């Protein structure tokens, strides 16, 4: 029987989930499960965005500050008495505009993404500090807080539905649209892609726009959940989202990555941190566990890739 990277990861996710429900008291309690569903989307959306950039062989270090800046946009609208819809629209405009800036410098000027986004990370942080002076903006009203805290039809958290929607959308776009296929091609071989008649810069631009959109959606959920926005909104998700994308099987050099893998990885992270927390494990030890699992899975992936390529070369030499 042959298992893909993703289905192995799915089994690991299932395994950690079962393990935690056996050893962590109250893990399967309805309260904890709903916590679990409420905590997942904001991180999941950022991880999805990160995955898409990594497939192109890039990275977006500014992603959490893009999110924070869109959050500030929404917060300013709400605290000045505008409607929720206009706040959401402004958040998305802010996110997409930040993405456009990143995309412009990466695709048209051709500066490596890690440098561009390192720069914009500091830039956006500065913009937020200039707007907020380091204070938090808070108090958005009860209706807005339903986006992150409300239940759809009284059972399912609304935010997890938003996440599922965007996960499916990302999957469909990557696999079914010509833009999505060009992303994989670009990640595998930039020059070959260019010579197959694809406008690389346009593909890349759209990638960063899409990441900006996902960051903005994540920001809307976060601001609604925490009823407040500050310069460091979600900043701890930055490296975690890279880790989740890579754990999910995305090739850090680009060209490979699947939505379902990233979703499994996000579930593994969330299960571990939630379960270990319930067990009363010190949060530094939780970090150790997550780091350990990441290294373990990456090593396994590395060896299985190596085996595969060996087998392939053997097959080709025999024939």
């Amino acid at each position, binding site marked *: 029987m042959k298992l893909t990277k993703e289905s192995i990861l799915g089994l690991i996710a299932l395994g950690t989930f079962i393990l935690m429900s056996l050893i962590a008291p109250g893990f399967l309690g309805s309260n904890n499960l709903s916590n679990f569903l409420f905590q997942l989307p904001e991180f999941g959306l950022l991880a999805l965005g990160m995955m898409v950039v990594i497939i192109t062989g890039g990275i977006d270090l500014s992603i959490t500050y893009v999110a924070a800046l869109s959050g500030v946009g929404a917060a300013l609208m709400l605290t000045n008495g505008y409607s929720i819809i206009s706040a959401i629209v402004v958040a998305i405009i802010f996110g997409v505009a930040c993405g456009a800036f990143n995309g412009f410098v990466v695709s048209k000027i051709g500066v490596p993404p890690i440098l561009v986004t390192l720069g914009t990370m500091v830039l956006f942080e500065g913009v937020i500090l200039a707007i907020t002076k380091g204070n938090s903006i808070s108090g958005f009203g009860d209706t807005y807080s339903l*986006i992150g805290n409300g239940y*759809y039809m*009284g059972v399912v958290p609304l935010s997890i539905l938003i996440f599922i929607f965007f996960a499916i959308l990302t999957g469909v776009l990557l696999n079914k649209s010509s833009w999505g296929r060009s992303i994989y091609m670009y990640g595998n071989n930039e020059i070959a892609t260019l010579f197959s008649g694809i406008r690389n810069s346009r593909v890349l631009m759209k990638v960063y726009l899409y990441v900006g959109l996902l960051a903005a959606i994540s920001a809307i959920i976060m601001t609604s959940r925490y*009823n407040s926005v500050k310069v460091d909104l979600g900043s701890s998700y930055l490296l975690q989202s890279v880790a989740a994308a890579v754990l999910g099987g995305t090739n850090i050099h680009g060209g490979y990555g699947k939505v379902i893998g990233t979703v499994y990885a996000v579930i593994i992270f969330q299960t571990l941190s939630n379960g270990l927390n319930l067990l*009363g494990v010190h*949060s*530094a030890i939780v970090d150790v566990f997550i780091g350990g699992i990441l290294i373990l899975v990456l090593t396994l992936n590395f060896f299985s890739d190596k085996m595969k390529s060996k087998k392939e070369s053997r097959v080709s030499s025999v024939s």
Partner: protein
Amino acid sequence: MKKLTLSLLSLIFFIGILAGCVSESGGGSDDSGNSDGGDSGDSGSEEFSIAVVPKLVGIPYFNASEKGAERAGEELGVNVNYTGTTQADASQQVQEIENLISQDVDVIAVAPNDPASVDPVLKKAKDQGIHVMDWDTPANEVDLSVKQVDDEEFGRHMAQKLVEAMGTESGEIAILTGGLAAANLNAWIDAAKAEFDENYSGIEIVTEKIPTDEKQQVAYQKTLDLIKSYPDLKGVLAVSTPAPLGAAQAVQEEGLQDEISVVGSALPTDSKPFLEDGSLDTAVLWNPEELGYLTVALGKMLAEGEMPKDGQEIEGVGEISVVDDGKTVIMGPPQDFTKENAGDYNF
């Protein structure tokens, strides 16, 4: 063409979800509120469990308060869960509290990174019958608030210490602060100024309070500038924990330990090297270990349905005072760290 239909379809789907949510979710959250209220009664039969959430873990200040909290747990027979995240991130802190709610603790005491961001989750905790309190930094939705010092007393105390260190009741001084917008620092400075005005009329403050961005390096630079511009400067009052260190560093480098006195709010381990050669005369702060202890002790009282009273004696901490609103507790007088005792502390 296909792409266009796809994106249109997804847009419609998304709007559909949103529209559905606005009409349905109100009822949904009501439901959850009701069902949650039911299971709050079965806790609290045996040992109380008190969760103490710091701003972050792994820095000396909060390690010291952890020690105090755990000692209180052992001595008072309560189950203490001191848990926080490794980064001072508001969203991680909220998740930490959500997890604590799942664990059915009796009391949650939080030192919020961002007071507004913990409002919704503390409300949720209250709905489930959990007592909520804050410590170190005030939050909004709490039953009880533990404050380390009285701002007025703290400011006046620092002013007195500075005059004491200068050895004279007249002369020029300057005030350094962490940031112009920090409410607690401003309260301390105002109190200190009032003390100078009322009791030491010979003291002249040479310039407006100087912001140092909560950075030792900036405080150092500004103090060097001050020494140049005001050659007769006798004293520096520095509030916010990095500022006294920077000021002392400047005085040390210029060799003016005997001419210029520096007093400020700083942790003893950081200030020890400056205290030893007299470039920093006194560091004034509170004892974070006792703060942790007091938080747990009051958390236990809260779980037992009692409220602290003004002037009550808390074993291991001393006499506490309660502000007029009845729910803000002040731990006690500020503590001085000098050359003699700075080595006795590990925070």
